[in-house]
Each structure stands twice: as C-alpha cells, then as structure tokens.
C-alpha cells in the first residue's frame, strides 16, 4: 500500500532526478515510521498503513509546493542561458563582420531587410532577457517565486529565444545574400553564421526541454521577503508599467541616437533611421508589452 502511494506520489512530482530520489526516500521513511507507530499502539498492520497514508495527505497536494520550488530553481537558470546564447550570437556576428564589415550601399533589398529584421530582433531579445533577469532578481531571496512571476520569466525567455532565432536567421540570410568584393574569402562569414545558428538552435532546444517540464502552478507561502537592492530593476519596470509612454521616450531617443550613429550619414540622412527606431521601440512595447509584463493586456485593462 505504501509502495502504491509512493508510485502515485512519484507520478505527481515535476522535479529533478536527484530531488525526486531524495523526496521519495523521505516520504517512504515517514510512512513506514507512521505505520510502525500505529502498529505498536495495537492497530492492525493494514489499517495502520491506510491511516498513515490518509494522515500524510493526497499526493497531488503534497507534490504541488515541491514542484513550485523546483520550478523556481528552473526559471532562475533561464536568464543566464539566454544571456550566454545572446553573447554567442553577438560573437558570431562580430566574427562574420570581420570579413564582411558592413552592408554595402549597393546591397540587395533582401540583404537590407534581413539585416534590419535581425537588428530589431536582437533588441527585442535584449529587452526580453533583461525583463526575465529583473523578475528573477526581484524574487531571488524567496525560495519559491509566485506562479505569476515564474510565468513572466518563462514568457520573457521564450520571447528572447524566438528573437535570438530570428536574429541569427536574419543575419545569416544577410551574409549569404550580401554583395561580396571580388577575391574575398568567406571562411569568417561561414564560421560566424554557423556560431550564430548553433547558439540559437541550442537555446531553442534547451528552452523546449525546460518548458516541457513545467509544473502545476502552485503558489508559494504568502509571506514574502524584501528583495532589497535586487528589486531595483523590478521597481524600474513597475514605473514603466505605470507610465509606459514617459518611460519609453528616453529609450526611443537613445535608440534613435544609436541608429543615427550606426547609419554614418548626415543628420538629415539619419533622421528616418532614428524615427524608424523610435517607432520600433513604441511598436515593440505595444506588441510585446503584455507578454513581457511591461504593460497590461487589453483584457487586463478592461477588467481593471
């Protein structure tokens, strides 16, 4: 009977193999102790086991908070994994750029479009990665992060993963379709593009594996510890959530300035780039804001 309970309990657990072994041994020990104690007080062995199991609680109820703890550990790994993949992506781009430094003025439309899509995607990945990191840091002192917070980290990391994939693909297409100077070797470009694609693919596989093990969304204990200095990024995001336009304007201006510098043209020539970048920042906030928990969704606004 105890073995049957342990099998049921094992089925409910969404934890690592080592934690699973430890929990099952502990629970088995507990049930045998409880059963022995009842037998010692004169209860029939079968009844003693039944009583011990009933007193322990339903497998799903006991497993749920353990799953939430394991889920908290898992989501804390996501931002570093995304960041590593992002760094490999940039390293691959720089490697490729050494052999083919910039998109030539005579570049085809496909090259330009791929390059621009990739440039936007990498910014989305950066923002989504920061969002996930801020949420993880905000809950760092709590052994169990709230289910809603874990969901923000998962969604943000998923957005970052897709964006890194788009960036790797976009830059690879831009490299393939770019006009090349006669006599240049393409070894660096191939190596850089390969590194970018491997980084994106490895991230996608890792994310798919980790998100597949998603547990039931149990809440942790209600009392929460102050995040202290680690909560600063989350407080900045709370400001963005409250005043999205006011907070997005500096980001758009900064993005415009970077775009103008990158365009390396006169101020008048760079203005369209700056305007496009500013529009991308606002568009990104509008489109991805609810997924990244940077602004409330339409349904949340209506219910509020």
């Amino acid at each position: 009977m105890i073995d049957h309970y342990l099998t049921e309990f094992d089925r409910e657990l969404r934890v690592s193999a080592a934690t699973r072994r430890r929990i099952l041994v502990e629970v088995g020990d507990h049930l045998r102790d409880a059963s022995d104690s009842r037998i010692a007080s004169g209860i029939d062995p079968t009844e003693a086991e039944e009583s011990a199991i009933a007193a322990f609680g339903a497998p799903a109820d006991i497993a749920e908070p353990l799953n939430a703890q394991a889920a908290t550990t898992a989501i804390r790994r996501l931002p570093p994994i995304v960041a590593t993949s992002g760094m490999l992506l940039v390293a691959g781009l720089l490697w490729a750029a050494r052999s083919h430094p910039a998109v030539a003025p005579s570049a085809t439309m496909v090259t330009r479009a791929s390059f621009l899509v990739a440039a936007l995607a990498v910014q989305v990945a950066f923002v989504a990665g920061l969002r996930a990191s801020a949420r993880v840091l905000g809950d760092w002192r709590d052994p169990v992060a709230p289910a809603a917070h874990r969901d923000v980290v998962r969604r943000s990391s998923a957005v970052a993963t897709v964006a890194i994939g788009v960036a790797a693909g976009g830059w690879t297409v831009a490299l393939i379709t770019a006009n090349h100077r006669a006599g240049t070797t393409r070894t660096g470009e191939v190596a850089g593009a390969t590194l970018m694609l491997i980084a994106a693919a490895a991230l996608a596989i890792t994310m798919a594996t980790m998100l597949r093990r998603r547990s039931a969304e149990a809440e942790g204990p209600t009392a929460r510890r102050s995040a202290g200095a680690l909560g600063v990024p989350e407080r900045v995001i709370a400001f963005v959530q409250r005043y999205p336009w006011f907070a997005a304007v500096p980001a758009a201006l900064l993005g415009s300035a970077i775009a103008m510098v990158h365009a390396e043209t006169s101020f008048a020539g760079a203005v369209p780039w700056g305007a496009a970048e500013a529009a991308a920042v606002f568009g990104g906030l509008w489109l991805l804001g609810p997924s990244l928990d940077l602004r409330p969704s339409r349904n949340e606004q209506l219910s509020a």
Partner: protein
Amino acid sequence: MSSEQLKGHLDPLVLAVLEGGPCHGYGVIEHLRSRSDDLFDLPEGTVYPALHRLERAGLVTSTREIVGGRERRVYRLARRGKASLADQRKQWSRFSAAVSTILNVSPA
C-alpha cells in the same frame, strides 16, 4: 486548526521545533502535534515542502544519519535560521498583540 489557517505560519513553527534539536520529518510533525495539544490538524506531508523550502533559504541544513537503527534525513537549525526565528518571534508578538487588542475591544 486547519492547514489553511496555518498557511504562512508553518515555517516559523518548524524552525521553533528544530530549535529544540535536530529532528527528522516525522519527528517534526510529532513535535508540532504534541506541543499544540493536537490542535494543528494539518496533513503530515505538508512538513516536507516546508523543510525543503527552509533548507533552500539556508535556514536549516540536513544530513542523512542513523536514527533508531534506521537511516533518516535529519534537519538542523542553521545560524541564519536562529536569526530568522528570533525575528519572526518579534513579528508574531506584535501581530498577536494587535489582533488580541482589536478582538477584545471591538464589539461583535
């Protein structure tokens, strides 16, 4: 007292039990039951998520040891756990004093 009423208070209770000495999970439940005069009617299994949570927070430590001829995971109060327990005792004193005051003076 149901497990719902105990929600949020289980962690300091477990720390208080471990203050009396190292203990395994089943022992923690027995202490909670006996020290509350059987008032705390919570599923015994709920103590394990609490113990694991406290261990992750660095408030308790655990080792596998032989207890009563059987190998068991034994939990100990860590230094940070002692400080946390003292802090939670102060918070509870203030909270319970405030609740008692209100319950005594407010009309039903």
